[in-house]
C-alpha cells in the first residue's frame, strides 16, 4: 500500500484525483485561488483524451457540468467563492434533476469580491443550500493534501451512488499548500449503472428525460419527498469525522479543514499547561456529525466546547444545535483572509478554563 510520496500542490492533487477517479469531463472558469486545478486539467485531461472546456462564465461551466452529467459522464468543475455563487443556479438544477457531479470550492474571503486569501465563509452556502429550493449537497472538507486526493476520488463514488452533487469545500490555504501525497496503484472506483442517462435512445422503447420541472404541486411535492428520503439515507450512512482525545477532554474544539490543522497543535500546548483538550473535526459538513457532538456534550468530563472557524461563526450554529444547551459553546473566528494563530486559540482555551466553566 505504501507508495512513493510526491510533493504536490493541493489544487493539482484535486485535479489528479479526479482523473484517477475516471473523470473525463472538466468545465471551468479562471478564478484565484483555485486556478491550478484548471491549469492541471487543461494539460492532463487533454493528454488522456478527456474533455476540458474553458467556459465563458461560471454559469456556463456549471451548465456544461449539468449537460455532461445528464449524458452519464463523471464530471467536475472547480471555482472559488464568487464563482461558486454564480454556479448556484446550476447547483439547484443538478439537485432537482438528481444528477451526479463534483464541484470544488477553494474558498476565499468575502462577501462580494472580498479577497483572495483563505476563508470558511461559504459554510452556510455549502451546507444550507446556496441555490433555491429544498435540497442538500454532500459536502466534504478535507484537511490535508493527502485527504484532498482520497476524498476527491471518494466524491465521485458518492455522487454516482446517490445521484447527487458532492462539494469539496477547501480553502485558499489547502489549495495552495504543498504537501507529500502517496498515490495508490489502483483507485477504489465504484461503478454504477446509469440507465436514466441521455445517451441517445438507441434500442430503448422510451426516451429518457432529465428535468427538474414538475408543474403539478402534488407531483412536485412527491418528488421533494423522494429527495428528502434520499437525504435521510445519506445522513444515516455518510457522516464522517475525526475525534481526538474525547475520553478525558475538558474542552472540545470543533473545527474543520485548515482550522483543525492549527487547533491540533494547540491540543499539545494546552496539555503542557495541564488542560485536557480534545477535538471533533467534521469531515462531512453535510451530513453533519451531530450525533458524536451531542454524545460528547453529555459526557461528564467535557465542560465546554470551543468552535474555531475562518468566519464570523457559521458551523458553530450546527455545533450549538447538536450540543443543545448541555454545555457552553464558545467561538473564535478570524475573517478577511486571516488565520488564527495557535496562541490566539490557546489564550481562548486558557480563558475558558479560568472562567470557572471547566
Amino acid at each position, binding site marked *: 500500500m505504501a507508495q512513493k510520496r510526491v510533493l504536490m500542490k493541493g489544487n493539482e492533487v484535486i485535479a489528479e484525483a479526479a482523473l484517477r477517479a475516471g473523470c473525463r469531463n472538466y468545465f471551468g472558469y479562471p478564478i484565484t485561488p483555485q486556478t491550478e486545478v484548471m491549469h492541471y486539467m487543461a494539460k492532463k485531461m487533454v493528454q488522456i483524451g478527456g474533455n476540458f*472546456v474553458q467556459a*465563458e462564465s461560471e*454559469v*456556463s461551466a456549471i451548465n*456544461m457540468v*449539468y*449537460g455532461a452529467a445528464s449524458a452519464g459522464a463523471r464530471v467536475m468543475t472547480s471555482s472559488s467563492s464568487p464563482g461558486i455563487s454564480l454556479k448556484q443556479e446550476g447547483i439547484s438544477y443538478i439537485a432537482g434533476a438528481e444528477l451526479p457531479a463534483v464541484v470544488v470550492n477553494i474558498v476565499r474571503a468575502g462577501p462580494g469580491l472580498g479577497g483572495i486569501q483563505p476563508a470558511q465563509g461559504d459554510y452556510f452556502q455549502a451546507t444550507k443550500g446556496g441555490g433555491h429550493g429544498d435540497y442538500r449537497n454532500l459536502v466534504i472538507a478535507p484537511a490535508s493534501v493527502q485527504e484532498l486526493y482520497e476524498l476527491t476520488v471518494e466524491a465521485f463514488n458518492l455522487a454516482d451512488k446517490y445521484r447527487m452533487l458532492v462539494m469539496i469545500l477547501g480553502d485558499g490555504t489547502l489549495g495552495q499548500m504543498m504537501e507529500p501525497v502517496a498515490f495508490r496503484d489502483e483507485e477504489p472506483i465504484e461503478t454504477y449503472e446509469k440507465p436514466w442517462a441521455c445517451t*441517445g435512445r438507441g434500442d430503448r422503447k422510451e426516451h429518457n428525460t*432529465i*428535468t427538474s420541472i414538475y408543474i403539478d404541486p402534488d407531483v412536485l411535492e412527491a418528488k421533494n419527498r423522494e429527495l428528502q428520503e434520499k437525504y435521510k439515507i445519506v445522513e444515516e450512512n455518510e457522516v464522517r469525522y475525526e475525534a481526538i482525545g474525547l475520553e478525558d477532554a475538558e474542552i472540545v474544539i470543533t473545527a474543520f479543514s485548515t482550522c483543525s490543522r492549527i487547533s491540533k497543535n494547540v491540543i499539545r500546548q494546552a496539555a503542557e499547561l495541564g488542560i485536557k483538550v480534545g477535538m471533533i473535526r467534521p469531515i462531512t459538513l453535510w451530513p453533519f456529525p451531530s450525533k458524536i457532538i451531542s454524545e460528547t456534550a453529555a459526557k461528564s468530563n467535557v465542560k465546554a466546547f470551543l468552535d474555531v472557524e475562518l468566519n464570523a461563526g457559521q458551523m458553530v450554529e450546527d455545533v450549538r444545535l447538536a450540543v443543545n444547551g448541555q454545555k457552553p459553546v464558545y467561538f473564535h473566528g478570524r475573517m478577511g483572509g486571516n488565520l488564527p494563530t495557535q496562541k490566539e486559540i490557546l489564550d481562548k482555551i486558557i480563558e475558558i478554563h479560568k472562567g470557572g466553566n471547566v
Partner: protein
Amino acid sequence: MAIVFQPTEGLTKKPLHYCPGCNHGIIHRIIAETMVEMGILNDAIGVASVGCTYNSYEYFSCDMVQAAHGRAPAVATGIKRTHKDKIVFTYQGDGDLASIGTAEIIHAAARGEKICAFFVNNAVYGMTSGQMAPTTLLGQVTTTSPFGRDASYQGYPINVSELISQLTGAVYVERVCLTDYKNIMNAKKAIKKAFEVQMSGKGFAFVEFLSTCPTNWGKEPCAAMEWLKEKMIPQYPLGCFKDTSNEEVKA
C-alpha cells in the same frame, strides 16, 4: 387504403400545450420529421429551454434534457463533448436565447460547438405573458412596453442570425418562417442542412424561425400570420446568412 398522413415517430403522443395559431407545433413537427427522415432520431439528444417550450422535452421522442433559462447551449456543449458521435440540438425561444442566454449562444457558436441551435423568434416573451423581448419590434406594444417600444428608452431589436453569422465557429446560419407550405418546406430544408453540418463535424449550425404569438400579440391566428409577414420580415429578413460548410475547417 393508402396512408397519406400520420403522426411522426419523432414526437411522443402527448398533446401539445401550445396556443391556437402558435407556430411551435409546426416547428416541433418538422424537426421531428427531419430526424426520422435522416435516420438520426435514436442518436439524437435534445435540450429544452425555459419559456413556452419548457415542456418540449416531453414532446420530442428522442432523449431530452431540460435546461435552465438561457443555458441550453452550455448544457448541449456538455452533452456533445460527452457523446461526440450523437446528434445534439437546442430548442430555444427569444427571451431564452437572445436575452438571458446571449453569452451561452455566442460562445457556443464561437467555440464552433458541433451542435444545432433552433431559435424561435416571436418578438415577445410568451410564457410569462407577453413582456418585451430583445427581439420586440420598435413601436410594438407589449406588457412591459405598454406605450410601444421606444428606441430612445428601450433600445433596438437584436438580429441574432446576423450577429451569429459574424463568428467563424458558426458554419451555417439561416432565418426561415412558416407562413405557408413553401416556407415550411424551406424551413425543413434548413433543419436538415443544420443536422448535416453537425454530422460533418464542421461546427455550429443555427436556424432562426420567425414565429407567431397570437395570444400575446392580441391577434387572431390569421391576422398574426399577416402581422409577421408585414412587420417582422422587414426587420428580420429571411435567408441564409452564412454557409461555410463547403470550406475546409480552419485548424
